[in-house]
């Protein structure tokens, strides 16, 4: 297949493409599913993180 004689290598080649498609579908399906909010704990953490970075 595709000039690749060893089925295990062909499987890896196609597997990479297939998993990328799975990831694309996942992102498309779930793009608005999860909640998107920043809590006080998240903000406190980010303030501390910014101090460390500076």
């Amino acid at each position, binding site marked *: 297949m*595709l000039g690749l004689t060893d089925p*295990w*290598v062909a499987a890896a080649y196609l*597997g990479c493409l297939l*998993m*990328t498609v799975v990831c694309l579908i996942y992102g498309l399906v*779930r793009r608005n599913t999860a*909640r998107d909010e920043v809590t006080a704990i998240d*903000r406190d953490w980010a303030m*501390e993180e910014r101090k460390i970075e500076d």
Partner: protein
Amino acid sequence: MGEQAVLGWADIIVIVLYLIAIAYLGWLGYRGTRSAADFLVGGRSSHPIIMAVSYGATFISTAAIVGFGGVAGLFGMSLLWLTFLNITVGILIAFTTLGEPTRRMGHRLDAHTFAEFLGHRYQSRGLQIFAGVLIFLFMPLYSAAVMTGGSVFAATQFGIPFEVALLIFAIITAAYVVPGGLKAVMYTDTLQGFVMVTAMLFLLWFTYSSLGGIGAAHQTLSEMADMVPASLQAIGHQGWTAMPTFGWGAQSYHLWWTIITAIILGVGIGVLAQPQLAVRFMTVRSRRELDRAVPIGAVFILLMVGTPFVVGSLSNAWFIDNGPLLHGQVSEVINADKERALVTLMRENDAGAWVYIFNEAEQPVEVPLQISATKQVTDSYGLNFELVSGRSSIITYVRGQADQIIPTFIASALPHWFGVIFFLALLAAAMSTMSSQFHTIGTAAGRDLYEQIAKKAHGSEPSLIVMRLAVVAGLLIAVLISYTVREGYVVARFTAIFFGLCAASFLPAYIAGLFWRRVTRAAALTSMAVGFGVSAFWLLFIKSQEAGAIGLVKLITGGKTSLLADYPNWPSVDPIVIALPLSLLTLIVVTFFTRAPDAEHLHRCFDSPSA
């Protein structure tokens, strides 16, 4: 070979434009919102493309492109299983399974480094210090891999000595990371990501089209299986489009165990327990942002890891059609119909006579050649013989040095201006990875070691000095390692060692910490100690490539490179295959023999209100 004129006007214009763009974005970043934490503080969402590409740019470096791409040039497309794991494990599983729990728990426990995360989760200062020490000691190995990869490329592309390239690389890195450039400025990371993507797309298109398209290119490579050097055939190499021979108990299975355990499993699984990547999940704003980053991350990794593996392998086909002509005398016919033979290489001396070329061991060099011409000539004794001319796989041209394969292919096959762009892409990849590596080294030394051991408050002045000193020390160690060790495919090996060590030491404690309430502090500590101890023992005494280079095992066994040197295949098995299961087993067994953690702490870890 592959040495080119240093820089033309077009090259200089490309470099200047790139630097202006980086400087502009850096200025934009420093004026306002710059890092992931700023986005979070400001309550704004960074675009998922920015999040995914900057994560990918941290993950992918010259180590993956030059190091692993070169290994693919040597061993073939079986390495695509690593790309498969990088997408499946490194993106899909990591983002969808580990990302959100890490983010929530990290925020609840106010953890800012990976070691601190483990320390707070298990309420153990000792565990944080232990993890900090491991990261501080071994991260420079990974930085050395990135630095060697970039320096080999610069040396080949611009025709300068490796040592000069390394020095320049070290100075650029120091300028970037020492004065406080530790902060991952997401816009510049993203631009660097886009430069990398564009360069990879062009490289992939060029390589396939110069070999007649996807099917034809693979076909040519498949038909070259008989051109694999004899030394690689002996360890199980069956061609660049075939898996190595599988089995146990003979030298001819050596390659399978090396590729599958060290390169594919070590790196493919090890990515889950990479300190600098796990910490990035905490900088994400919400689960939604993680979900949206999955497809972009997958495409990015497919291009950045898949391309070098395919191109590295196909460079063998390109060189057999277009490589510089080599000359010599046939010593053994490989395939008469295809005019392929094992040829003893010769060169014409100043007197016009043909003489043998010798390798470092003073032996005549014998390589497989695709013969394109023959003629009668005389040797140094005045005797007539038939001289054949032809081309070989890229392995011949780089003398088996895998790290040279991608740089040599680009310097030889692609236009020079592309080499410059590719160099900038590599520089970008190296810088984004190294800035996070050195950030991790600095915070490991300052926050996890100094502050914990000296019991200082977070962010105190001496702690900042320790961080900066640690970055400088880490940089010096990395440069020293790059300067000293260059044999074989060190870039990929150093990366694999670091990833494997992280997986065996941290992975069970990290994942159990996220999902298993019953797991105990004692279990996590012993699991980490077993994971690290077994890995270290294996690297020092069993895995011959590393054990032989370190040399301790030779003192004990009187010159052997492994305690199991007489048992084929054991010396090529990677520590991860032994150490990770043992570390996991230890975690489970010790948990059941120790007292469960208190409910109040578990409530804080898992149930307290958060996003």
